[in-house]
């Protein structure tokens, strides 16, 4: 039986330097429940160290967590990677770290707080997570796919850090799984503007609790799994994006 799942698959935590400290696992999950979100994607900048805390806390709530990461390419394009298990995203994270130069300046960019499910501070991530890694767009998409993940270009309508702002247009040979638009633009506006050859989704890119669910996409799926999401992107076996 297929049913509708409400998904916000681009949500930051207090680990992103630009994410508010109030983006604790508890606050994130409460807000998601309030917004009746079935699936949350946790995607911090160039890191996934707060995914374990979200997975742990979500066990007692009716919300499924997709482990994720938002990688900044050398072209300064943001790309979401979504995975069906923690191990995959943590392995990918090591590849990103190996290609991510610099150290964070907390005064300039903000704190990067790694927490447990209770929101207790475990450590501060010292890396320059706001920076760009030295991997190209294509290398990152390949890397995400090599860990069986889905690769989505973030907020393509934005004037910075987007596929369109950095590269002018969507490269025809790109093998992304979907394109994300920001809450600033509607699905139909995006269709007119980009005439995309890839599925369009809209997520919140929340950096503050109240932004969670501000934008979302509904999917017709059998269950909340990455395999089902992949089928919906490919419009197969009845699975689909509900626009």
């Amino acid at each position: 039986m297929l049913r509708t799942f409400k998904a916000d698959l681009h949500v930051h935590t207090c680990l992103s330097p630009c994410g508010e400290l109030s983006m604790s696992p508890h606050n994130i999950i409460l807000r998601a429940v309030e917004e009746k979100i079935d699936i949350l994607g946790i995607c911090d900048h160039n890191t996934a160290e707060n995914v374990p805390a979200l997975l742990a806390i979500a066990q007692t709530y009716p919300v499924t967590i997709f482990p994720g990461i938002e990688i900044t390419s050398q072209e300064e394009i943001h790309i979401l990677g979504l995975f069906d298990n923690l191990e995959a995203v943590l392995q990918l994270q090591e590849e990103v770290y190996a290609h991510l130069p610099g150290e964070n300046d907390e005064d300039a960019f903000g704190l990067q707080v790694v927490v447990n499910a209770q929101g207790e501070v475990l450590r501060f991530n010292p890396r320059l997570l706001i920076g760009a890694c030295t991997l190209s767009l294509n290398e990152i998409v390949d890397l995400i796919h090599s860990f069986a993940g889905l690769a989505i270009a973030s907020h393509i309508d934005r004037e910075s850090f987007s596929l369109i702002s950095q590269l002018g247009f969507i490269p025809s040979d790109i093998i992304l799984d979907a394109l994300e638009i920001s809450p600033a633009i509607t699905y139909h506006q995006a269709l007119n503007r980009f005439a995309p050859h890839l599925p369009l989704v809209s997520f919140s890119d929340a950096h503050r609790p109240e932004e969670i669910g501000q934008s979302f996409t509904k999917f017709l799926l059998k269950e909340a799994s990455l395999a089902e999401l992949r089928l919906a992107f490919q419009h197969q076996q009845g699975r689909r994006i509900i626009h």
Partner: protein
Amino acid sequence: MTLKEIASHLNLEIITGGDHLSLEVKDGYTSDLLSDVIAHAPPACLWITLQIHVNIVAVAKLKDLAGIVIVNGRQPDEETKQKAREERIPLLLTKETAFRISGRLYQLLAKGR
């Protein structure tokens, strides 16, 4: 001033489009945002950038640019070079920064006026 003269004055390494250097260059444009180049680069200008993605070739073609100078010693990959050969877009390399090569190009073009 022709692209050929500019390449020689600024010591640019020509990697593609070597037989398309006779075009008169009157202006330059320095930017790493391709959307900005599409919106604002003057026609027939020489574009200075650190981007090496294959899309730079399409933008140069779309805007009828004289060529692309890639800075900081960055090397475009084979796909970008192949596309530039197909589209006959001159790709020129320099180890200089965008700031320095832009300054030198500006001086050169100002002198020619």
